[in-house]
């Protein structure tokens, strides 16, 4: 059986969520391996959420919001962009494969782009396989601990 990755999408309410909605109303079919979490703005998406998703078993993550200059709150996505630029570097250095996190700008009108993004991400995560390395680290606290 083909590996069905668990993908968590952190999206902003105003653009990408609406875009994903449009994908549905336009009846564009796309992979159902993605779980969407809606945020008021990409600026609200703390980097810790991404780590928490991996810890809870996500194999891949999508982060998406309004295109630059389109933010509902004028600058939330600009702040987010800087955060991801820095975070991506750190993750790479620590050995958390940044190919497992996909960043994208998707507007409310880009229903097709959303479907394409999800499908592409699913495919690339399938190629990478399940994220066992991080899940192993995350699993330690669930086990009995025998010594320090």
């Amino acid at each position, binding site marked *: 059986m083909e590996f069905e990755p668990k993908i968590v999408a952190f999206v902003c309410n105003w653009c990408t969520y609406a875009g994903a909605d449009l994908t549905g109303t336009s009846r564009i079919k796309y992979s159902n391996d993605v779980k969407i979490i809606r945020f008021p703005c990409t600026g609200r998406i703390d*980097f810790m959420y991404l780590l928490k998703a991996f810890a809870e078993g996500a194999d891949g993550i999508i982060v998406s919001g309004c295109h630059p200059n389109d933010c509902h709150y004028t600058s939330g996505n600009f702040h987010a962009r*800087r*955060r*991801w630029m*820095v975070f*991506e570097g750190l993750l790479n250095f*620590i050995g958390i494969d940044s190919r497992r996190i996909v960043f994208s700008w998707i507007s409310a009108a880009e229903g097709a782009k959303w479907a394409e993004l999800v499908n592409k991400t699913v495919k690339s995560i399938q190629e990478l396989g399940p994220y066992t390395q991080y899940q192993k*680290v995350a699993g330690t606290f669930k086990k009995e601990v025998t010594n320090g």
Partner: protein
Amino acid sequence: MDKLQKFVFDILTSKEVTLVIGYENGSANKPRPAFIREPSDSERLVFNEKCVLNLTVYLGTHCTNNPGKVAIFATLPALCSILQLASEHQIQTADLLVIYCKSNDEFEVFDDINKIEELVCKEEVVIDSKNSVLIETISKLSVEERFEYWTEQFSKCIKCYACRAACPLCYCTRCTVEINQPQWVHSPSHALGNFEWHIMRAMHMAGRCLNCDACANACPVDIPLNLLTKYMIRDIKEKFGEYTFSVNKGNLLSTFKPDDKETLIR
């Protein structure tokens, strides 16, 4: 009395300042922080190349409780620290006299933060060669090997938070790890808790890290955790073209440019 001691003696005698935060010789002749209030105690003060501890970590607590002006011994990272703390509104620089020490008889005195900024602007934040080599070596590993390397390093972490306590910029009275509604970072020192803590610490240092190594020097189990922030200094320099400290510029992650260039977001 060397020149530095004499200077401290004078400013304490004239009551220009009421407290001097400097270094004295501690056990095994290793320097440690000293808090000097009496002119006669200024003889205890030392300054040499072993004085690497960043004394600005005491500015928040000791300045607010001190009646009168405070003088502090500063190395280059400590000067950056003072700028950064001032820009984050953590210290009042009006009550601060900064003694930028180069040796026990060569030092510069600043009571104007703008002068400090002028000096710091001229000095590039440079990562020393030993750590540069380490960063290079780690970067060349495969992504899985890098993860394994850090898993092993973090497994030593006992969550004593000495790194946090020693860092002048970790001044929050209630750290994110202590926020418990919800419990944001796992508090036990298991693998996940340690990963979350160290990643979070590094991220909160993004664009702020002073390159002073206080965190790594404080670590009782020798985790090279300064490599994380040093790597970020390098990365930020590459991505944003500069890494500087300034009173008025604002932090890297709390400011933005509409034309920030990246190749990351599709």
